[in-house]
């Protein structure tokens, strides 16, 4: 290939300047058997039962495995389990483990470990608590088999395959014997990699080593299910707090994968042939509404909010590039198994301020400021907060837009006081796509009053339908009930939808086998093409 004079000059100039400024300072090349990943935040706690933090989940998926995992069709497949026998009335599940399974310390994985792990999990996880409420008993049959006896039908494998929240990871009995609010410090695991807690220093690069005792399945990989092969000897995860520095690290080849970069940085890297900018997991955008204080304790006021939102407009402002968002009016997401946009009977399309104003009047809105919590350290949510404040003002409402960091917002949202007394009316949020796709796991769709998530929606109709869904047998029956739930939600309005968007994921072009679309990024089955 011929090089132009300008190119030759440019190369010569760069070589000369490189030598002049930094001769001998050449950076070391990455080891071929090490995968380097930029972590979205620093790992703060290593216990996936104590916290629902996404960073802890990414860590946990490397070092733990589960009895069941979801495949790409949303079917729970055996993972550590070998088989499951289900009784005709779906009230008894006999689960058998695969033979020869070991923890990272070499100890055998037995039903004693499994039962203790599930006991700790069920005391914390929302789905686990639903299971616990229907559980008669869990009994050991032998070292590899146990039985789950239920008072009502319940999809046990699906519950044990849950991906977000507090997944049902299998730990040694001695670790799982800890109270569910006490953090573990023994990170002996059942997954493809192992982690040394004693050498871990928060804030510094954390290192995962291939677990020699892990026995992967032989089934082809599908989403979280199937073969989980530790293809790299070592994984290094570094928290790089500054997005521009992270971008520079990707450009210089210091990192292999960057999950969830800011959209501006991701788009800036699109032209680089050495990098792939892919769509990551999808999320459902929404506004969390406080149902226990005025004015949104009245359904007409909540309906007014739907007339203020133009999903296309809000996503252009909050997300930007249309490749990464789409409008959606399904309470259980447009991407998921149970999503049904036709069930939604509310307002769609452009904002209608006159209608919103009329509905606020009918709701008895008294003109007091509506408190919108604005998480300024989360750019997308910040844009959504500003949008809502602007739309409310256009509809004649008084708005108190309160700026704070997300951490402060999470404390503030616990208040049930009136908005004028330190409470709140609404704030922008997201639900990760996978849990948002099922009535079982969509936290913000649950309308069980005081026991509900922040905002405390309270609607017997939704709760009765959710209970029916949990007990439903086959997929068609579940879909039917899910549509009824969404129809009911579109009249009760537990939260206000703003459409769906996907995060961006950047990774090196020589990486293959990486699935960027999972709700919690995992790093098994990944290879370098050159290897």
């Amino acid at each position: 290939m011929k090089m132009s004079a300008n190119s030759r000059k440019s190369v010569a100039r760069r070589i000369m300047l490189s030598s002049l400024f930094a001769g001998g300072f050449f950076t070391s090349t990455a080891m071929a058997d090490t995968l380097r990943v930029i972590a979205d935040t620093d790992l703060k706690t290593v216990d996936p039962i104590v916290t629902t933090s996404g960073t802890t989940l990414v860590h946990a998926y490397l070092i733990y495995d589960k009895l069941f995992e979801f495949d790409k069709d949303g079917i729970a497949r055996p993972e550590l389990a070998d088989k499951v026998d289900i009784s005709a009335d779906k009230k008894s599940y006999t689960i058998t483990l695969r033979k020869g399974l070991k923890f990272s310390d070499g100890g055998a994985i037995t039903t004693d470990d499994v039962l203790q792990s599930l006991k700790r999990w069920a005391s914390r996880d929302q789905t686990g608590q639903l299971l616990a409420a229907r559980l008669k008993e869990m009994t050991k049959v032998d070292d590899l088999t146990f039985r789950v006896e239920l008072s009502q039908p319940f999809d046990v494998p699906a519950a044990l395959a849950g991906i977000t929240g507090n997944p049902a990871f299998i730990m040694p009995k001695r670790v799982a014997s800890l109270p569910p609010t006490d953090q573990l410090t023994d990170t002996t695991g059942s997954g493809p990699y192992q982690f040394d807690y004693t050498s871990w220093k928060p804030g510094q690069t954390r290192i995962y080593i291939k677990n020699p005792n892990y026995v992967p399945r032989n089934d082809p990989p599908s989403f979280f299910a199937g073969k989980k092969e530790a293809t790299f000897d070592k994984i290094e995860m570094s928290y790089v707090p500054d997005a521009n520095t992270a971008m520079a690290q990707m450009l210089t080849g210091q990192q292999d994968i960057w999950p969830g970069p800011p959209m501006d940085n991701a788009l800036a890297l699109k032209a680089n042939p050495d990098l792939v900018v892919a769509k990551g997991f999808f999320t459902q955008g929404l506004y969390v509404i406080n149902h226990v204080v005025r004015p949104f304790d009245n359904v007409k006021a909540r309906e007014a909010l739907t007339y203020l939102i133009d999903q296309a407009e809000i996503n252009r402002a909050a997300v930007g590039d249309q490749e990464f968002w789409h409008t959606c009016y399904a309470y259980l997401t447009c991407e998921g198994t149970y999503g049904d946009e036709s069930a939604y009977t509310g307002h769609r399309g452009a904002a209608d301020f006159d209608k919103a104003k009329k509905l606020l009047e009918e709701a008895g809105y008294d003109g007091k400021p509506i408190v919108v919590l604005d998480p300024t350290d989360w750019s997308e949510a910040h844009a959504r907060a500003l949008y809502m404040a602007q739309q409310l003002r256009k509809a004649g409402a008084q708005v108190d837009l309160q700026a704070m960091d997300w951490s402060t917002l999470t404390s503030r949202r616990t208040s049930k006081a009136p908005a004028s007394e330190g409470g709140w009316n609404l704030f922008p949020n997201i639900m990760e796509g996978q849990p948002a796709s099922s009535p079982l796991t969509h936290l913000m769709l649950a309308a069980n009053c005081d026991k509900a998530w922040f905002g405390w929606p309270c609607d017997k109709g939704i709760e009765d339908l959710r209970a029916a869904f949990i007990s439903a047998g086959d997929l068609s029956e579940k879909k039917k009930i899910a549509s009824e739930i969404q129809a009911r939600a579109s009249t009760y309005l537990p939260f206000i939808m703003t459409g769906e968007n996907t995060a961006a994921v950047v990774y090196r072009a020589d990486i293959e086998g990486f699935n960027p679309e999972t709700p919690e990024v995992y790093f098994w089955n990944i290879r370098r093409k050159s290897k």
Partner: protein
Amino acid sequence: MIRYLITRMLSIIPVMGVVTAVVFGLTYLSPGDAAVVLAGDYASPAQIAAIRERLHLDAPIVPQYFHWLGSVLRGDLGNSIFSEQPVLALILSRVEPTIILAIAATLVSVIIAVPLGLLAARKRGGIADQLVSFFGIAGTAIPAFLIGYLLIFTFGVYFGSMPISGFPGLDSGAWEVLRHVLLPATMLGFAQTALITRITRASAIEVLNQDFIRVARAKGLDEFTIIMRHCLRLIAVPLVTIVGMSFAYMLGGVVITETVFAIPGVGRLLVDAIQHKDVPVIQGVLLISSFVYVLINLMVDLSYLFFDPRIKYT
């Protein structure tokens, strides 16, 4: 002198007492709840309440303060709410990069700033003086992070010849440490250099206008000797003050530099702790940083005795 030293050492006690009260009060009163952050975004109110109870976060402020103070006096700064690791160990694990960065940045700034300041004073009103004054203003005005990005994208991305983030640790060798510290030290030292240059210039102009300097010149003493033996010694006191204070400030953790270059230092530890409401870590870092600041302040005061024999502490 000894009496003065003892008095100064004893005066640290009430200062630190006030610091403990202020630090504890501020962290207690600041918005946010560690239990909420620890439980995660999808935790239920009941789960959060259980964690809050376990961590005794619902206890009244006064008993909490005295319990904490008692632990501090026993040398126990408590454990991180999140990692459950001892706060002192966490801080010590972050001290190495911060100290090395602070030393490197101080060296960079002193080596560049003092000659520049003296040059500007010597050539007062000339081109050199104007250029140095412009640098002094620019160094203060240009945001440090912008300098950091320029260094990263010039030497790290464009030339591909320098590491742009992280800190390898002393066990990886002095050369490796130097490679990693050069860009952040330059960024950090840039603003300090500008400040020290301006202080040096102003102090030197004052000294060079004094009668004894004229006498020295009249006696035929060369300019180098005048600057090094007479001028530099007299401007040492304000110089040591500003260098000492900026060094102490840097030891408290230089948040922006550590963030831009992803260096796991004390500053990043503090910022992360604040973002997560990890109260024991916030209190520990602020307490130790305050103590270091007070200690360096004392050392700077004592150094005046060496630089200016006219100063006597009684």
